[in-house]
Structure formats: structure tokens, C-alpha cells
């Protein structure tokens, strides 16, 4: 969905979101109070500069608007693969966003993630995956990589991967699979402004993705394995 149309639908009471290249941010009104929107467009590849900008915006919200909820709408094809970004230590720039979002959560800012376009690997890891709860629109594409590239790199036959992805959410891209595995809390359909209000009012919990993934049958091992390591030998 076009991000401007989406913002209009999400915030019928209005917003002051401004765009600068692939980045956008600003205040928005909801029935349960002001929120701050931070997002990106055009499936942008996140390089060091954009990562730095996203961290800046997060820190600015924490400083200017204590406890204000943040709606993260990151549309990304992942990190920018370039020698120059690696030279600058792009991993550190992405880690900085993650630290700022974590800090905001610790300071009482609720973070609601919404994947409306693409969410891929490093760009997803450092942003929406830090939200208290991450949601997706039905057309959202979430993935590590597509099946043909996966087949090439893992040297597993593409047809074999296609067959497996019909029965297992592990292999194939898609918001439904991430829902099933617990990384997406719900897929928003219908009146999305109401879905947002519900998300802004839901109780905040610790990382519940393993429990959700186990309950939904999409990720059965992460929860029991981590529990066994927590308790083994004690």
C-alpha cells in the first residue's frame, strides 16, 4: 500500500508525518492519544546513514515525549550490501537502532511495528523485530531470502524446498508463516485504524514470540530448548 494512503487510513484524526527521501516521521493522533510514527518507504536498503537517522529519531522521541507510543513502519529489502558500508561498520549502526528501541521500551514507550511492504533480514532484525508487538498487512512480504536464492546457496533442490514450504512455515517467505512462528502477532485486515487502537491498548509483555510460535504450531522447539538451557544442571 502507498504509505500516504496507509497513514490516512491508520490515523483518521490526522497526522504531521513528513517525508525526507526514504525516511518519514512525525506525530499522529489516535483515539487513545498522540503517537510518533517512524518509517521508511520504497523497500529501501538500509545503509549506515539511514540507520543513523532512524536511531536519531528514536532518541529524539525519548527525549521530547516521555512514554509516547511509537508506531514503526519500516519497509526494507534488508541492509545495504556494500563494501563501503561494511568499512564503516554498518552492523554497529543497525545495532544502535536496536539499542535505542530497546531503551525506549525500557523507558515506557510502547512500540507497535507494522510491516506494510517488505521486511528482510538485517533491516527487519534491527527495527520492527524490536517492537513490543509486530503486525503485518496481508500483502506484506517478510523473508530472509526468496526460495531460488535459498536453493542456490544451500544447494538444496528448489522443488524440494517448494514441497517443504507447503507443509512447513520455516522455509517460504510470507507474513502468514511469520504469524505461525510467532514473529508477527496478527495480520491486520478490515478497519486497520481500529486494529492499531487495540494494539496501543494491549498489555505489554516480554518477548512472547517463542510461546506464540509453539502455541500456533509453527515453531515447536525454540521455547522448550531455551527453557531446558535455563534450568539444566541447576
Amino acid at each position, binding site marked *: 500500500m502507498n504509505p500516504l494512503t496507509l497513514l490516512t487510513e491508520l490515523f483518521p484524526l490526522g497526522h504531521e508525518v513528513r517525508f525526507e527521501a526514504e525516511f518519514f516521521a512525525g506525530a499522529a493522533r489516535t483515539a487513545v492519544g498522540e503517537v510518533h510514527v517512524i518509517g521508511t518507504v520504497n523497500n529501501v536498503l538500509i545503509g549506515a546513514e539511514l540507520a543513523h537517522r532512524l536511531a536519531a529519531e528514536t532518541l529524539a522521541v525519548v527525549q521530547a515525549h516521555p512514554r509516547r507510543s511509537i508506531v514503526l513502519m519500516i519497509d526494507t529489502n534488508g541492509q545495504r550490501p*556494500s563494501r563501503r558500508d561494511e568499512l564503516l*561498520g554498518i552492523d554497529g549502526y543497525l545495532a544502535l537502532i536496536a539499542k535505542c528501541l530497546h531503551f525506549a521500551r525500557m523507558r515506557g514507550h510502547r512500540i507497535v511495528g507494522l510491516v506494510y511492504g517488505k521486511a528482510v533480514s538485517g533491516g527487519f*532484525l534491527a527495527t520492527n523485530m*524490536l517492537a513490543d508487538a509486530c503486525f503485518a498487512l496481508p500483502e506484506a512480504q517478510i523473508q530472509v531470502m526468496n526460495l531460488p536464492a535459498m536453493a542456490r546457496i544451500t544447494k538444496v533442490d528448489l522443488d524440494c524446498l517448494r514441497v517443504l514450504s507447503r507443509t512447513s512455515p520455516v522455509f517460504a517467505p510470507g507474513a502468514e508463516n511469520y504469524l505461525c512462528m510467532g514473529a508477527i502477532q496478527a495480520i491486520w485486515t478490515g478497519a486497520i485504524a481500529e486494529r492499531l487502537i487495540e494494539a496501543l491498548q494491549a498489555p505489554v509483555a516480554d518477548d512472547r514470540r517463542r510461546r506464540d510460535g509453539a502455541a500456533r504450531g509453527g515453531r515447536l522447539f525454540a521455547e522448550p530448548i*531455551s527453557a531446558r538451557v535455563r534450568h539444566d544442571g541447576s
Partner: protein
Amino acid sequence: MNCSFREATARMRIAGLLDAGSFVEFLGPSQRACSPHLQALDLPAAFDDGVVVGRGRIAGHGLLLAAQEGGFMGGSVGEVHGAKITGLLERAQHEKPTAVLLLVESGGVRLHEANAGLIAVSEIMRAVLSTRTAGVPVLVLNGAQYGCFGGMSIVSRLCDAIIMSEEGRMGLSGPEVIESTCGVEEFDSRDRALVWRTVGGKHRYLTGDTAMLVEDDTAAFRAAVLRLLDSVKPDLSLDALVAEHQRLGERLARFGGCSDALEIWGLLGAQAPESLPLLEIAEFLATVAPLRGRA
């Protein structure tokens, strides 16, 4: 006697690092915690899924630690592998050891478990942040054969401090990935000198991304851990984040136009940048001491 950290297996690294006889493994190989997804692909599994987790001591300090094994699928993070590290970090939040050590060796997400691997890395990231928030430092040791790439490089940069050897490598998109995505003219992954000076320990030390640079020697890593245990205290305060944000902003302004590490080292004030890769560690550290902290 020098005992190479790079050449060792994950279990050998642990044995060389810790006080003799102090290691206790959690969910060891006898408990057969294997990846269910590799079995579905008819691929061989490992009884520890490529990561060893447990507790032990260094000079009496109680620690929790995880060591990735590059020999199994490049140390990549699958569902079970990731859950073991996450569980260890959560354990640390309750047990409050002196620190958690992550002996990283990983290509990042295990593509054979694509979605499950990506979520697992995210869970490790959040567990690292929660562990630090609980006041327990998390230290990274990076000097193993396969280096540390993909999501595990972000994990590393979330931690309190990184110890690297010159042979250690750290980057988000690995040289091979960049070459296959953008072409050999962007990054020639077979140009070893280029790879080392872009993602290797010396460059990461010069820019301050790694706290300590040590010889490829397990005893040197142990000594570095001991030094950091005395000085590192988790700080995720607003002041710390604002300072880091400013530092990374200055880096973009100063070095954003550089296309090679040699240019950055020159801008930092190195007299003969091209000679730095050739120096032994002790000589290198002495030479660059005045340049550190300027990045």
C-alpha cells in the same frame, strides 16, 4: 606455548579459556538437541546443533558462555542453536554471573532454516539487551576461523565489549555475499588483503568497534577477558546512547567518502597506513595507540 584460538574447535576454545575442570555444559550432546529442520532436508544433524553452552570459571569468576562451532554449517543460527544461546542469556538474568561470554563463529542466519533462523537471531538480540539491562556484561570473543557475519555481527555490536584477534572478522554482509549480489568490482572476496583490512580485527580496532586486539592465542583471549571483567559495566543509559550516536555520526562525516580502509587509517593520522597490516600485534598496538579514540 601458543595455542591458536582460530584453529581450535568450539570445545577446545572453551577448555583453553576456562579454569581447568570448571566447565559444565547445559543440554550437552548426550541430550540430542538436534535441528528438526535439517532432518526434513535429509541433511546431517549435530547433537549440539553447532553451539556449546554452559558455565565455568576464569580465575575464579563465575561465567556463563556459549561457543559456536564453525565446523558445523558455518556456525549458522538455526532454531535450536539460537534457542540455546537465548536460554543461556535468560539464565544469566537470574543467576547473575560475573559476565556472559559469546565465542562467536557464525555466518549468521542458517538459510536451511530461513525464517526460524532469522527469528532466533532476533531473540538472541533481545536477550542480549535484557541481560545487559539486568546488569550482567556480555563480552564477545571473535577470532575463530569463519569469523562473525550476518545477524551475529549485529548481536556482537549489542554487547558490552568485543575482543578480536587480527584473524577475527566481523561484518554484516560477508564479502562473498556482496560479491555475489553486487559483482566482483564491488568486493573481490578472493582478495584476502582487501577482506582483512575491511572486516578484520585491525581495522575494527582502529575505528574502536572492538575494545581489544589480541594475538591468535587462547591464553591472550583469556587475559583480555580478565582485564575487561575489571572494567566493563553495562551502560545502556540515554547518555551512552547519545554519545554513541554522535560518535557514529562523526564517523559518517569523516570517513563516509572513503572507499578503502587505508584512506581511513590515513585520515586517522597513521604515518604509513599500508604498513599496518604487516605489523605484529605488539608493534601494531604500540604504533596505533596515539590514533585510537580519534574514530
